[in-house]
């Protein structure tokens, strides 16, 4: 056994090349605000710019095939790029994008050759940023209950409905969505999967007022939106995987999603920040970190963080060695969600009101601690609630025969 990710001489050279490249190509003044709500338009544009530049090297979506705009690189090389971006507090992709993260996987499997050659390069080269449109007011955990309709009408689909918990601040060029193409049809057999240009007439959106603007998969997504469709006309060419086959198409990328959080291999920022705060804040003359009762809590935080790291090391190994990821995906996701919630409470136990304050002078770690307090609650739901993770795990472990289908997203 070997638990260390080490690099071949070629990969070490690659790492130096990436490092040098980033020195030259990192846009000046790129942002990393504690609260994603504060991501400015200018900051977002700098992230897109970085994305474009990375894509030219094949580094934006490094593990996708070159022919479709990816880099054709190994998981380890992708990890190297992420490690180097990390030094600038940036991740891969440097902005919220569900296109390369999820949609591309489904298009690869279900798209026609023509669809692949049209859609994939634009996504994988960072020319478009793509939102995902899944959750609706009546379709959260029960995604099969989608009410948005897409009724065929010649060579178009007429779309009406509403999607919530969508996307990010500062808009998007595309979306992908599930819509009901056969109202009255069989559950799971009446949905279809579309790529949607967001500038089509009849599409409007407005930001939602949530306690925390998103920080999805580590990217600053910013505000989530409600998106409305009023007689929107989507060309049939944008239907992927055939009519009423949307459930299967979505299943492809929802499965994939759970193996993608290798950010956890790069260190636990929350833990680091809490430790920093404990070194700086004092009680009765001593830094908090010297207090044995606080050390006990820090031990819990550290152990929880190690479990997350080890779960992700295993997933990285499974991916790298081409093995199938089964229950380990939702398990790692569940662990991360629960770790976030436990960390919030432990951090408040240690820092008291300092954990809750957003103030230039008083906030430890530039406000990242306060943001984690809110963010940890919100983190329980995207990509499927804790309950949904448990449901998938149960299925993968072969427990009973759950009649519920999974796939909640927002």
């Amino acid at each position, binding site marked *: 056994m070997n638990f260390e990710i080490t690099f071949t001489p070629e990969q070490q050279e690659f790492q130096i090349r990436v490092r040098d490249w980033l020195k030259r190509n990192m846009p000046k003044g790129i942002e990393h605000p504690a609260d994603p709500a504060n991501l400015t338009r200018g900051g977002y544009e700098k992230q897109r710019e970085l994305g474009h530049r990375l894509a030219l090297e094949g580094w934006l979506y490094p593990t996708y095939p070159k022919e479709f705009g990816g880099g054709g690189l190994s998981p380890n090389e992708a990890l190297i790029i992420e490690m180097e971006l990390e030094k600038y507090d940036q991740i891969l992709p440097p902005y919220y994008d569900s296109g390369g993260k999820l949609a591309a996987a489904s298009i690869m499997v279900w798209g026609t050759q023509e669809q692949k050659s049209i859609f994939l390069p634009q996504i994988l080269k960072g020319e478009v940023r793509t939102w995902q449109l899944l959750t609706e007011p009546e379709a*959260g955990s029960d995604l099969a209950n989608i009410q948005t309709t897409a009724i065929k009408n010649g060579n178009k689909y007429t779309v009406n409905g509403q999607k919530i918990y969508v996307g990010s601040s500062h808009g998007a060029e595309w979306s992908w969505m599930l819509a009901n193409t056969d109202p009255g049809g069989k559950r799971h057999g009446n949905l279809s999967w579309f790529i949607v240009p967001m500038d089509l007439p009849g599409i409007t959106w407005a930001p939602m007022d949530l306690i925390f603007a998103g920080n999805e998969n580590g990217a600053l997504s910013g505000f989530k939106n409600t998106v409305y469709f009023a007689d929107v006309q989507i060309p049939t060419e944008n239907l992927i995987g055939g009519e009423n086959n949307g459930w299967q198409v979505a299943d492809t990328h929802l499965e994939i999603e759970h193996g993608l959080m290798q950010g956890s291999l790069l260190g636990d920022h929350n833990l680091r920040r809490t430790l920093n705060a404990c070194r700086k804040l004092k009680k009765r003359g001593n830094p908090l970190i010297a207090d044995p009762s606080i050390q006990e809590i820090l031990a819990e935080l550290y152990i929880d963080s190690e479990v997350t790291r080890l779960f992700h090391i295993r997933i990285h190994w499974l991916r790298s060695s081409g093995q199938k990821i089964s229950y380990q995906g939702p398990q790692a996701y569940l662990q991360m969600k629960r770790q976030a919630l436990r960390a919030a409470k432990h951090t408040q136990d240690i820092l*008291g009101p300092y954990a*809750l304050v957003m103030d230039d002078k008083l906030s430890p770690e530039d406000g990242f601690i306060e943001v984690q307090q*809110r963010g940890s609650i919100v983190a329980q739901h995207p990509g499927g609630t*804790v309950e949904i993770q448990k449901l998938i795990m149960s299925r993968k472990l072969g427990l009973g025969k759950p009649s519920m289908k999974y796939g909640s997203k927002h």
Partner: protein
Amino acid sequence: MVANTSSMDLSLTETQEMLRSTIRSLVSQEFPTQTLLDMDSKKNPFTTASWNKLTSSGWTSLLIPEIYGGEGGSLTDSAILFQELGRGPVPGPHFSSSVLGTLILLEIGSEDQKAQLLPELAAGKEIIGLAHTESEYDHEIVGMAASETHDCYILNGTKLFVQDVLGTTQLIITALLQPNKLGLFLVNSSTYGLEIQELDGWSTGVSNVHLNHVKIPKSSLLGTETSNGWVELFAAVERALPVLCAYQIGSCEAVFDMTVKYANKRHQFGVPIGKFQRVQDHIISQINYLDAATLSTYEALWKLDEGKETAKSSVHLAKALTSEAHYQICNASHEVHAGLGIMREYGLTLHTKLSRTLYHYFGDPKYHKTQLIRSLNL
């Protein structure tokens, strides 16, 4: 079975039932979710209008003895009222003035000071708060020293994370007179050199109070020559805490109610989600926390009202259980509500934020567990 012949009785008196239902309708009429959201989103979460809605029912005088123009109610009476305010949750300096401030005055105030101020508090004309904690956020530590001149005291420094002082007319500010003697100064909130700075973040009603060479007349020092300051302050806090717990319990009740309602209304997979065992378990955990907090809090109140010797440990038990209950009940509600719960307009997050804020106010669960063990003399 033969009828009950014990004097043990967990029900409320008729008067208490009436108080409860009066305040309950008042709160639900005057403080609908949208009003509470508006108060929360404004920089000043407290308005005189909101104060007046409540004072008109005479509740500010509840804990004040009749000789000072009050109603001479029990702590249990006060708790019943605050439990209803917690259902909002109605923000503002209600607890800080009508419970904590009032009890501090009753403990330490000289006869003159009480005769002067308590009737004003009873009438709702004065509203007081307590500025006590400093940078270490430990209510057992005060570093600020009062420097004495021939005719006044001078205070310099900052009180941090002060709870519910916006809207107050007077502040009780603590500062050391001697290493082991604490001065409690009654200071007009608009005194020159005193600045209240509201704090942003994931908390409710928290401010810093900056004191820049604030001059305080000697007559504003509360108490008499024999007062120790610490002793009276902690005696008042001990009596006030279970009323604060009742306020948290009201918030817990509201959260529990909205969670059960949603679990039965919301359908997924063709059935109300309340049918799923995982959802049920969240709700079962809520009622278990809620009942433990409620029973322990009202037992502590009863012991304080009856002057029982074991009241002290009951107060620590109640605050430890209630802070934890409030925190976990809100978390469980978020699990059940999923995406809906994090939308501000729904109202749940008002409670969640409050649960975090009060979690460590006058001691977090860990602190109270330590005190509990000490008070039990095992």
